[in-house]
């Protein structure tokens, strides 16, 4: 069975740290920055566990600020 690998980019400056993407992610890739904030004072989301990403775009679906872009590759069977 082909394996799917994904990755996300998050527009730090646009993120409002609402955490909905963190909740929506089925593979626990995302977290909010515990200390660091963006220019508007939000603890923005980041890929804390990027290897687990399957590129399902669940995070992007629920993001109210459209600050997540999603990439996906289907790896051939090894």
């Amino acid at each position, binding site marked *: 069975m082909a394996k799917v690998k994904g990755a996300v*980019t998050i*527009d730090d400056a646009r993120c409002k*740290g609402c955490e909905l993407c963190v909740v929506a992610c089925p593979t626990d890739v995302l977290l909010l920055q515990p200390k660091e904030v963006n220019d508007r004072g939000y603890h923005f989301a980041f890929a804390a566990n990027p290897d687990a*990403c399957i590129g399902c775009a*669940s995070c992007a679906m*629920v993001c*109210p600020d459209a600050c997540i*872009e999603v990439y*996906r590759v289907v*790896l051939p069977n090894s």
Partner: protein
Amino acid sequence: MTPEEIIKPENKVYARPRLLDDRNTHYCPGCSHGVVHRIIAELIDEMGLEDNTIGVAPVGCAVFAYNYIDVDWVEAAHGRAPAVATALHRLNPDRLVFTYQGDGDLAAIGTAETIHAANRGENIAIIFINNGIYGMTGGQMAPTTLLGMKTATTPYGRRADLNGYPLRITELLAPLDGTCYVTRQAVHTPAAVRKAKAAIKKAFQNALDGRGTSVVEIVSTCNSGWKMSPAKSNEWMAEHMFERYPLGDLKNI
């Protein structure tokens, strides 16, 4: 593969919609408005309607919707969006005309305009954000506020004997002969977002096809007004709002 190897244009499966303005929204973190705006921007692009769409913005938190989605917009007086849309569509019948309204706008001050536009079967799509509260003015009771729910004007909780009952206006619109599609959706999970997007797409297509009025209610959160975190608001909505406002199609002909 490392993320750097995956993050290449040819692998992109989701991008910020082209028709979403570059500016940041004024909405609070986690606000459902942002998700619905995003869906609408995606659909207008996907359906090839950028040059053919006129949106009608409400009074309420979404008053600035016109700043965010890159199509022509008219900002209506409080509650009057269906009347504004009626004339826009009748005078420009080949355009997609949709309204974007909150619960105070659509179900309180604009009840007459909503019901009569739907009863005439105006070929418009009505996107109705129901978060059970007045967000813009600081969290006062809406017609859709649940019994017992605390707001700035029901500080001890909404009481039926004082404030009446939470209004299910979508149920009032479904039996009207002028409506062709009346549905209630939410955007709290990825699956719900996909369904809501399909519903809005159907509403837009109905309007273009001249099939009558379509109403898509989106049961939404107002985490600032509800005084909860965005994630907690979604949970609370699923637990309490859906009981009074169950999701699904009320009419689909």
